[in-house]
């Protein structure tokens, strides 16, 4: 260890760096306009190394999928940056330059301490719209990135502290609901300014040399800690698979083949055998593919702090020639929200047999994007409504999965029904548990959501980017898969089922028409025939399952009159099933 560094200073600087990021996160989220940022917390702030953008620290409540991407994105900005000065600020959303999808707009700012470049500060926030074919950016059948919206290479939006009004005008001329974006831009820039002030104080107090030494040491320590965790996994080769329903254009499932080789304290990830690049927007840029693996590992070992060292023991082969390594001009809007979650699911599936006590059956794993754009004749205004929803989580050694958990890559709250109905001409007629959707298991999966929306006035176009419509989230250790995602559009008295099940775009609906969505349940964990029959009886009493499902899925026979377990018949059923 560096001589200027005692263990106390090290711990205190670690805390201090995270605190700087937490304060940036807080400033951003409280001042933001985009509900995706302020309510869904779809944002992240961090500090990155001066030379290569390596992650130094990130806020505790940053969006998980940005865990890995931001250092790649910052690195690309550094490569392209010329003549940087204090007060400069780059804006960039190019997915191929270390990004996710176009809606995730990154602000990247060089941080100078006493006139010298010390590090970079960056944040990402999900803007509600960045132009393109459909409001919100999730065009389910785009075939080129140009259809997905405005793509910005790193450009200086602020030059030495002054906003470039011309660049701003270009941006605002190319996106929807532009009038509120100035609020987000100011919030996003103000958050980095908070970071500058706080980091300066930290450096003033401990000195540049000590802080630099601590950053180096913390990186080593995080790696050491991650290696200690990985050593719990027995050496070996582990394989997992996951499927994306379709790319939205060609109606075929996309396969993710995950081979994980564990030797010593290293993990190697090989995705050879995954599907080739696809025509629709389910391609994943490499930064997102890597980040998805990072966040999956972080979900398994949640208490390892995040910096560049954390992920040093993870070695990821570039999955060239697959849809997980998207190159220009492949459309990518679905990668951050959906494909990332399938990648994580493949990692979970691979490692569950190796460390069953640490893992869990698959969670619903979809962001459940339902966007509807239309015109309200009563207010004579156009609107874009977004509904996101959760689904069931998988069972684990600790117990049943929770119902309506948020997406694997997010930490978002759903918008209250009362707010949706205040803002848009809709009536939500049902918001309920997706009964029967929890995968059967000794510890069952949690349940998805079952909702119905009716359009009250005017016409609108509905779009969906969801997943797990073909097959439900995987069960583990003998547990069953969770229930699938379904979408039905009721228009003019007919029921329309999207051919791609979970993805569609621009479906025209009119007054009185409805949209019905059921989101996936979580996978079951362990043999359902071992579930305590009394718990199955409770589940039936609560209407989570029907008596038939209790018998078929759990081998539990209930007295139709009292709802109590008939033990003799249950034994007989369970024995017959085992035989």
């Amino acid at each position: 260890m560096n001589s200027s560094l005692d263990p106390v200073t090290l711990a205190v600087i670690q805390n201090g760096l995270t605190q700087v990021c937490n304060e940036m996160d807080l400033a951003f989220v409280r001042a933001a306009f985009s509900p995706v940022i302020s309510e869904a917390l779809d944002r992240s702030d961090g500090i990155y190394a001066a030379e290569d953008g390596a992650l130094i620290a990130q806020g505790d409540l940053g969006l998980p999928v940005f865990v890995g991407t931001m250092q790649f994105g910052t690195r690309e900005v550094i490569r392209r940056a010329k003549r940087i000065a204090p007060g400069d600020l780059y804006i960039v959303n190019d997915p191929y330059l270390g990004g996710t999808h176009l809606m995730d707009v990154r602000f990247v700012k060089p941080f100078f301490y006493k006139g010298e470049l010390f590090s970079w500060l960056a944040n990402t926030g999900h803007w509600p719209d960045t132009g393109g074919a459909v409001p919100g950016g999730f065009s389910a059948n785009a075939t080129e990135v140009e259809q997905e919206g405005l793509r910005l290479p790193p450009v200086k939006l602020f030059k030495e502290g002054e906003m470039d009004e011309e660049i701003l005008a270009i941006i605002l001329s190319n996106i929807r609901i532009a009038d509120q974006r100035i609020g987000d831009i100011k919030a996003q820039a103000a958050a980095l300014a908070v970071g500058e002030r706080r980091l300066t104080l930290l450096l003033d107090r401990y000195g540049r040399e000590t802080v630099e030494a601590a950053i180096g040491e913390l990186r080593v320590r995080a790696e050491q800690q991650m290696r200690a965790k990985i050593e719990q996994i027995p050496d070996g080769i582990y394989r997992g698979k996951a499927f994306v329903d379709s790319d939205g254009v060609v109606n075929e499932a996309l396969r993710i083949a995950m081979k994980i080789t564990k030797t010593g304290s290293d993990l190697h990830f090989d995705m050879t055998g995954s599907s080739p690049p696809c025509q629709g927007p389910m391609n994943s840029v490499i930064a997102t593919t890597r980040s998805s693996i990072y966040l999956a590992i972080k979900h398994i070992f949640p208490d390892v702090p995040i910096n560049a060292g954390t992920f040093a023991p993870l070695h990821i082969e570039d999955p060239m020639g697959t849809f997980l390594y998207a190159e220009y001009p492949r459309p990518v809007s679905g990668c951050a929200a959906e494909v990332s979650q399938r990648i994580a699911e493949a990692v979970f599936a691979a490692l569950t047999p190796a460390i069953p006590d640490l893992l869990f059956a698959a969670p619903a794993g979809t962001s459940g994007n339902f966007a509807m754009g239309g015109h309200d004749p009563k207010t004579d205004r156009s609107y874009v409504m977004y509904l996101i929803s959760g689904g069931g989580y998988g069972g684990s050694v600790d117990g049943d999965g929770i119902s309506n958990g948020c997406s694997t890559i997010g930490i978002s709250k759903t918008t209250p029904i009362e707010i949706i109905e205040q803002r848009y001409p809709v009536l939500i007629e049902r918001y309920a548990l997706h009964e029967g959707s929890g995968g059967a298991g000794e510890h069952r999966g949690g349940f998805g959501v079952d909702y119905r929306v009716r359009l009250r006035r005017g016409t609108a176009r509905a779009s969906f980017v969801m997943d797990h419509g073909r097959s439900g989230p995987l069960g583990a250790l003998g547990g069953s898969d969770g229930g699938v995602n379904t979408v039905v559009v009721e228009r003019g008295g007919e029921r329309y089922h999207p051919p791609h099940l979970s993805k569609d775009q621009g479906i025209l609906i009119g007054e009185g028409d409805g949209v019905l969505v059921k989101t996936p349940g979580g996978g079951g964990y362990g043999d359902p025939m071992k579930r305590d029959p009394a718990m199955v009886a409770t589940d039936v009493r609560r209407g989570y399952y029907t008596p038939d499902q209790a018998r078929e899925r759990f081998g539990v026979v209930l007295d139709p009159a009292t709802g109590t377990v008939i033990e003799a018949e249950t034994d007989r059923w369970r024995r017959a099933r085992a035989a």
Partner: protein
Amino acid sequence: MTAPQPQQIVVGVDVGGTFTDLILMNQDGGDIRIAKVPTTVENQAFGVLAALEETGISLDRVKSIVHGTTATTNAMLERKIARTGLITTEGFRDVLELGRRTRPRPYGLKGSFRPLIPRELRFEVPERMDADGQVVIPLDEGAVRDAVRALLEAGCESLVIHFLHAYVNPSHEARAAEIARDLWPNPYVTAGHQILSEYREYERGVTAAVNASVQPVLDRYIARLCAGLAERGYPRDLLVMQGNGGTVSSTIVSEAAVNTVMSGPASGVMAAAFTARSAGLSNVITYDMGGTSCDVGLIRDGVPEVSSELELEYAMPIHVPMVDVHTIGAGGGSIARVNDAGILQVGPESAGSTPGPICYGRGGAQPTITDANLLLGRLNPTALLAVDNPVSLDDIRAAFGDRLGAPLGMSPEEAAAAVLRIANDRMAGALRMVSLSRGHDPRDFALFAFGGAGPLHASALAAELGIPKVLVPARPGITNALGCLVADVRHDYVRTVNAPLDGVDMAQVRALLEQQIAEGHAVIEREGVDIEELAVLHSADMQFAGQSHILTVPVDMPGIGREALQTAFEAAYWTRFEVSLPEIKAVLVNLHTAVIGKRRAVPLNALAPAAADTGSEAVSRRRVWFADGWHDTPIFWREQFPAGREIAGPAIIEQLDTTIVIEPADRVRVDPDGNLIVSVGDAPEGGAA
């Protein structure tokens, strides 16, 4: 019966986790009595009555008793709640189970959530209001009756009626409640809008469900206590503390039982506000550190900050206005360990009170913050390590050496110093986040330290945060009981407006506020509490169009106007974010009114400890560790500090319920109320980072 005389005796009694504290005083300042008895967990009333008995006061001489209870908090946390049923809008019975779910922790996909009302006790009836308050589907009254009967049959004791958009048009909810009350055998029927008339169906529904779930629990408890008091000759009404920092008559407390759920920490903040005001400090951060956690609150311009967005636990929002107290998971029992990365970590695991710190001798083996304080001489070893105690200072030293010192290459004492440094750093960071998230810079505040461990860390923490002044009250151990004594009667009202400011009918706003005031006055009249004057506070929750977060700004009633609101909001926004947005319209979201019945102030200086006859010399000296190393440090008793005395650090001042550490660079003086005012001398430039 004693001779008739004007009743001037007032009593505050607070039930804490371990002790029930009582303070009694004559409003003229004489006759102070303090009692401390063990809390009786199963029925807190026994402890309360025992504390009263200990004072020896004849209850017919008592003018008022104000009671802070954790009965409802405990009921919620342990889920020892009433069997409660729900009747709600058709299609929405699962709102209370689905919530606006996230997950318990950002990383890790495990964890659990149990709704307050299980699904089989959640019934739906046909009815629907839209967001404008227009009826879409009329209320099916027959279905309400059927549901009520079914829930009674299912053994429910309490009932919640919660309909969508009832905040804008409560007529269906009110009618359904009326029907239910005709059939329900007890008064435990909660209509959501009566507890909270604010949009967001999950938050409003949970708040109503919490109310119903604890109503019978609170009612039974209060009835038992009142009966006990009456038996002992107390002829008047009992007042109960609420989470908003005000009191309410026991006769109506259970109507809005949810208001008492977070009342414990509120009384501490009320006492702090009262004491600080008297000491001339108007901006104060309260810091109450106990065995497992710290409670932090903010007082601005003499008024405790109130929030309506607190969560009791994961996904359990309680959205009634409450004193904004934030709990940080660091206390005397927080465990120090060296993690996988070889980094020293303090908390979040706690040894609690069993096994507790090593020094308790209850089998605790892991070093804690309290043990570190002991090893460094900041706590008195002879006081903590009792004679019958199997643990010695050497045992503690050995634990610090083996578990922390060896892996870190430090001596046991160095390791203990490191534990304190890191613990203070973490607490300072958390305090910063608490003040920042409410838009304040901690350097503009004084630190009010209480609780068993607060005054032990306060000066170091203040230095870390750049806070210039620390106040340690005369009796830090009974701050919550004092809070009961000084609290006013208070009732809060919230109403959602949610319209762009330029479209709001200001006459209607004024009418709404008038209505809230009238409601408050009516309730206070019904309570019949003896008050000196009525006061009213208004505030408005505002945001820019398109935002979802709100900022609360104070409102002056007679002069309320569109421009004044716009200006106040823009100014608050600038202060908070340094962002101005002239291009975007402001929205008026909610209107708040607090109606306050001021009780007669108690003379604080009566609390100042009587001067002891031990003189002013240090009673002993011992080696104490400070940031700059060991100091031979004088040890005093608190009784040696009459008003006006001033000394320089380093020093340790001990009193029965706490230990106060004065850092070497600090000075301390005693103010006329007996508070210790510490001037912090060694604030690092710019505060903590």
